């Protein structure tokens, strides 16, 4: 007999169906609803979605094909030692699944995604394609000035794409909507950290991912509903340990992997999955120059992640240690995609800082199409046991 599905579960299943749909029907429907609408896709790990929204476009988060696509063409473009997200993204492109996407932004993550921007220009010359760089100098006068100009160029590009101006007023309104989105996202994460048995990691994950595939207004309503549903969620509390997941900000693990970690005895209370909507950690100012406000938010109020330089040695890994403390995590699973330069080059430094702070940690690698969960369950299970027994 099927278990009755709770309201939170209903919302999560709806989100899962959106995330699972590699024909992107929801985004296609949005575009078809009014003539002239445009869809602008973006890859991990951060773009200012406010600008895309203010241009009247739908920002569409693209995180590869997951474990639901057979990569045939994509493998012909990549050597065996390159991660999977670019090959499944190419697969999405050459199989026509992204034929409704009018523009594509490739933010700075690593050299693979950077180079994919050039490949896209060659392979899909009719799509507006842009490599979107963010500064590694965090001085407002230097990196801030540069970034504000880059945002101005992005605004001009979007205006050319849509044929309409992006006014400061429209951009401020979009910033306000995304501020609301970020507040709700943080509230969901806080609620999960407080009572993780009510919010399974896989459910929270699809609720966040689906939000990057629908209008922000719709996602804000959905998040408010989900929060209300979590408050009345009735699930048994298990004797799981509380863990934070880091290293998974770009190529995403399959849902089965998230579930396996929980089945192995871990509640996920913090993560950096599809980081986009948590990249900025505080409200962006809605007064003054909106581009300067977006720039300041990036410089001053963004997470520490592997694609950003950490200017001071003492600050390296501080964000991770603090998040562990804030969320009450008892340990960290550093789960990096195979061949992921950012996550794997950072791993010794981040895990070193966690160890220095007395935080138990373990690591493993995955791919978006990993199928064998038994080793993951065994590792995560042993890690959970070790925390229970010895921490």
């Amino acid at each position: 007999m099927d278990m009755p599905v709770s309201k939170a579960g209903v919302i999560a299943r709806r989100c899962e169906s959106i995330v699972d749909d590699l024909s992107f029907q929801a985004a296609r429907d949005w575009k078809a609803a009014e003539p002239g609408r445009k869809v602008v896709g973006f890859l991990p790990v951060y773009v200012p979605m406010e600008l895309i929204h203010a241009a009247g476009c739908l920002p569409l988060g693209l995180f590869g094909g997951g474990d639901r696509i057979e990569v045939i063409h994509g493998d012909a473009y990549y050597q065996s030692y390159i991660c999977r997200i670019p090959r499944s993204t190419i697969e999405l492109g050459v199989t026509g699944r992204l034929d409704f996407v009018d523009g594509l932004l490739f933010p700075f993550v690593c050299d693979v995604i950077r180079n994919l921007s050039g490949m896209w220009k060659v392979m899909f010359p009719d799509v507006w394609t842009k490599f979107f760089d963010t500064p590694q100098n965090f001085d407002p006068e230097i990196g801030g000035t540069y970034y504000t100009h880059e945002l101005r160029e992005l605004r001009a590009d979007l205006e050319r794409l849509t044929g309409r101006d992006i006014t400061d007023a429209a951009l401020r309104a979009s910033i306000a909507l995304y501020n609301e989105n970020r507040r709700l996202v943080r509230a969901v994460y806080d609620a999960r950290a407080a009572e993780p048995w009510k919010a399974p990691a896989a459910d929270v994950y699809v609720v966040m991912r689906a939000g990057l595939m629908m209008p922000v207004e719709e996602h804000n309503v959905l998040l408010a509903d989900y929060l209300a549903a979590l408050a009345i969620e009735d699930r048994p509390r298990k004797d799981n340990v509380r863990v934070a997941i880091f290293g998974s900000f770009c190529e995403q693990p399959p849902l089965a992997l998230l579930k396996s970690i929980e089945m192995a005895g871990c509640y996920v209370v913090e993560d950096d999955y599809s980081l986009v909507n948590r990249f900025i950690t505080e409200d962006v100012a809605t007064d003054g120059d909106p581009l300067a406000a977006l720039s300041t938010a990036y410089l001053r109020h963004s997470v520490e992640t592997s694609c950003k330089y950490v200017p001071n040695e003492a600050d390296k890994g501080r964000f991770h240690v603090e998040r562990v403390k804030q969320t009450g995590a008892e340990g960290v699973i550093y789960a990096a995609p195979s061949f992921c330069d950012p996550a794997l080059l950072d791993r010794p430094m981040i895990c070193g800082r966690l160890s220095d702070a007395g935080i138990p940690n373990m690591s493993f690698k995955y791919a978006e199409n990993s199928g064998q969960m038994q080793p993951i369950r065994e590792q995560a299970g042993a890690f959970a046991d070790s925390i229970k027994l010895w921490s």
Partner: protein
Amino acid sequence: MTVAVKEPSMLLQKEMIAGNYDAITSAHETGRKVSSTFVPGNLNELLMCFGILNNLPEINAIQNGMRRLSGDYIMEAEKGGHSEDVCTYVKADIGMMGRGNIAPNGKPFPEPDVLLLSYTGCYTFMKWFELLRAEYKCPTLMLHVPYEGDGHSTPNMIDYVVKQLKEVIIPGLEEVSGVKFDIDRLREILALSAKAEDDLVWCLETGKHKPSPIDAYFGGVYYIGPIFTAFRGTEEAVDYYTALRQEVKARLDAGQGPTLPDGSVLTDQKYRLVVEGPPNWTSFREFWQMFADEGAVVVASSYTKVGGMYDLGFRHDPADPLRSLAEYCLGCYTNRNLPSRVDILAQYVEDYEADGLLVNSIKSCNSFSAGQLMIMREVERRTGKPGAFIETDLVDPRYFSPANVKNRLESYFQMIDQKRRGANKAA
């Protein structure tokens, strides 16, 4: 193994590099400051203004690769928690530190006084120096050079780099060295850079002749040695490139090809190739010999452009020193987007009348490697010349499979023969 026979310029280059190692390892005695910095977008002229020595970790890794030391160093780093998936230059460097940090002259490297993170065209650089910074606890100066995503630099990018030079890099180097910056000194040095750059380009472009008097890949890595490392902007470099030019001109006049490691001269050149990607260093001589055995000469390569695209016209400009340094950093090969790289390589195939493009894809280097299969196909499509793809690594001997590489090369040469026969029949 027999001793490799080298051209006179190669011996001179070796002497210069050895001299730099001696200067670095005697820094404690001489009181000179030492920087670590990277090859692409390196700011040697600026370091010279402050009397700071230039130690390049990529070059150390190459040296260790050629001396067959890197394999152990890499495994040492992997034992310490560094992933088997990441750049082997980084792991060779970190492993070397774990084994006493011994320079090629047998003396220990001094700890750097500054890490000059010229962040150009390679993501790994950023993490590499974050890793080193944790060990050395010395000042780290980051110069963020934006990627040319749309195939060109914008005024905003140039302003950003110049501003960082003025407000971060120069004050930082002044503090480390205790020397005040003198822009006129920089102008003098840049004038010398431009002189050497002229001669380097002349030499590299002789690959257009038949027979080519140079090998622009295996020989080319010797030719770029001084200008890509600690000598750009010095009188020594000017003298080196004058001598190199004379040497290459003598071969050109005599209708001779380059000298091979076994001492023979490759004048009977059956195949002319353009090569994309860095070489393998752990089996460098064996790798070169595979080409030579088949009568293949490399007439142009992208690797010899990682430290500057001088053949496309860029010269360091004493008239506008900081902007010139910014443009130099922005224009390095791996900082250019893929469509630009396709344009450059296709143009090389045409201009150097090559038989095709060979890609040596390096496991360690995503900056070069990600997208190379598309590059190869595009160049094939545009030029009508066949391409080929081999896979090796920089300094990890586990990823150099001689039988596989040789087999692929032989197949490629057969393909070129076939194509020629087809063309002859059609004619």
